[in-house]
């Protein structure tokens, strides 16, 4: 058979989102790939320039829809630096709580999507089932399952309800008991190992060269985790290990993500203990009313006044479930951010697609791209 290009997407079961992978194949072999993004480009960076600082949080939830909290956190850190605001300590722990539960939720969603890519049907349901438990927790203190609008410049919107820590511990216990089950369904299956071992290899040098970060980088043996290397919020006060693997293949990425979920459980237990012992305010009290208000009072007189904040730029970097996410917030003293620039980890991970796809079979595309964990919302923004 001669060479031909096939379009995988934008509507294709492999993509898990709205993008197009153009693949040049010869029979079943991949000769070249060309990812085509932008089908979900919503202009978040541009809209942010028309919004107040707290209103951008709404967009951040929808930027990466499986890791809304992480992106809220990312933006808030940048905005706080640009606006020179310090959050109270309890708010920082609450943010870590959100982040780590979000990491578990995101990885469970990844697990559900990934196992479906290699044809495992039941674990998809198991992953979604356990993710719903995490979302129930989110719902109990933010009121929403996916789009929270919970963090605020200078803290978080509200404290967790009474009894939250106990129910959170129950969920953690349940999840801890489920992890061996997941492993057995995947690693315990010979077919899984046959399919995923030595597949989609991207060595550490290539990862760094092509900007690949997150679990993909750690699966290549590089121990880079911004929670350790450049601690933000309360991560410098928490104990955890960075999950790494050596093989740099799909199985290694699976192992890294599974280990990250276990480490998240470990972090969360510490955070929950801390929250039990240290009650306190969750929103900085020296904020002007419009910035500190729990609910943005649209139409309020004071809200519309021109603010003269000290000029500044904010730069934040967090370890999102997918990798290294950066935010660059420029504050020119007005009421809107002058420019917001986000760096999405999946953006860079997809841009290296040629490096880890060429040379494998067409049937390998779903597991490899599944192991990249594509979230198109944050790629296209």
């Amino acid at each position, binding site marked *: 058979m001669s060479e031909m290009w096939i379009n995988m997407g*934008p*509507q*294709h*079961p492999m993509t*898990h*989102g*709205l993008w197009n992978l153009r693949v040049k194949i010869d029979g079943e072999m991949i000769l070249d790939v060309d990812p085509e993004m*932008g*089908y*979900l*480009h*919503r*202009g*978040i960076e*541009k*809209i942010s320039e*028309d919004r107040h600082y707290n209103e951008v949080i*709404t*967009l951040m939830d*929808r930027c990466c*829809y*499986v890791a809304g909290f992480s992106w809220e956190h990312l933006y808030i850190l940048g905005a706080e630096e640009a606006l020179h605001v310090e959050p109270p300590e309890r708010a920082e722990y609450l943010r870590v709580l959100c982040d780590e539960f979000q990491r578990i939720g995101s990885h469970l*969603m990844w697990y*559900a999507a990934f196992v479906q890519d290699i044809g495992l049907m039941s674990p*998809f*349901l*198991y992953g*979604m*089932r356990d*993710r*719903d438990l995490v979302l129930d927790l989110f719902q109990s203190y933010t009121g929403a*399952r*996916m*789009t929270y609008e919970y963090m605020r410049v200078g803290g978080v919107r509200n404290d967790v309800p009474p009894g939250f820590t106990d129910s959170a511990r129950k969920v953690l216990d349940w999840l801890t008991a489920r992890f061996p089950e997941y492993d057995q369904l995947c690693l315990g299956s010979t077919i899984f190992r046959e399919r995923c071992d030595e597949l989609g290899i991207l060595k550490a040098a290539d990862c760094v060269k092509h900007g690949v970060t997150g679990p993909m980088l750690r699966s290549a043996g590089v121990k880079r985790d911004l929670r350790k290397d450049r601690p933000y919020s309360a991560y410098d006060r928490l104990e955890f290990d960075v999950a790494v693997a050596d093989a740099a293949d799909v199985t290694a990425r699976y192992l890294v993500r599974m280990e990250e979920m276990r480490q998240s459980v470990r972090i969360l237990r510490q955070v929950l203990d801390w929250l039990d012992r240290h009650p306190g305010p969750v929103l900085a009290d020296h904020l002007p009313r419009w910035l500190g208000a729990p609910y943005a009072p649209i139409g309020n007189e004071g809200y519309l006044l021109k603010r003269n904040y000290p000029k500044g730029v904010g730069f934040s970097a967090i370890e999102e479930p997918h990798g290294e996410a950066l935010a660059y917030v420029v504050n020119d003293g007005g009421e809107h951010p002058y420019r917001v620039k986000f760096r999405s980890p999946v953006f860079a991970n997809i841009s290296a697609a040629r490096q880890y796809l060429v040379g494998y079979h067409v049937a390998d595309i779903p597991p490899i791209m599944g192991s990249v964990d594509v979230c*198109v*919302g944050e790629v296209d923004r």
Partner: protein
Amino acid sequence: MTTPAAQTSAAKPAGAEPYRLEGELPMATQAAVPFIEIETLRAREFIPAAREALSSLIAEQGQAKVIRPVFNWAGRNSLFPLHWGLACCAIEFAAAFGARWDAERFGVVPRSSPRQCDLMIVNGTVTWKVAHKLITLYEQMPEPKWVIAMGNCATGGGPFRTAYSVVPGVDKLVPVDVYIAGCPPRPEAMLDGILKLEELIRERKE
């Protein structure tokens, strides 16, 4: 029905000779009269009337009382949505097929090929870049087909309606049957939208 038979019978004087049985027809001498015409002549009075009566019977009685309700029952109980995810709502769309909500209880099974679908759930923000692909997918779906605009973005652009790249509502592109509010709608809301669509199909009149 009328054209060949009517012309030839008009050429002959009607009623000039009585119709005879098939065995007595002078086939050899009247070789110019084709067999089909004889059949038509003999059935001339009966067929149109019977057809008319039957069709009206089917149209009025069967169609309304039997056929349409049966097919509407089948159509509304087996909605195959297109398996695609646009944005945030796609995650809730997936959650609706998860263990807790299990949309398959209602016979809703996502199919990957638009040829096998009869329901397009637009679950997310539609950009101008994907607009023509969406229309193509819609046109690839065979009739009868329905569209559900899931979430605020598909309904009217949602929080991104001012953006330069976003279609403010998918009803600018394809006809929408059911709108589901929410950003994103919960899986219950999506199931409710599907049940609303089932009510629409129940009352379908074509």
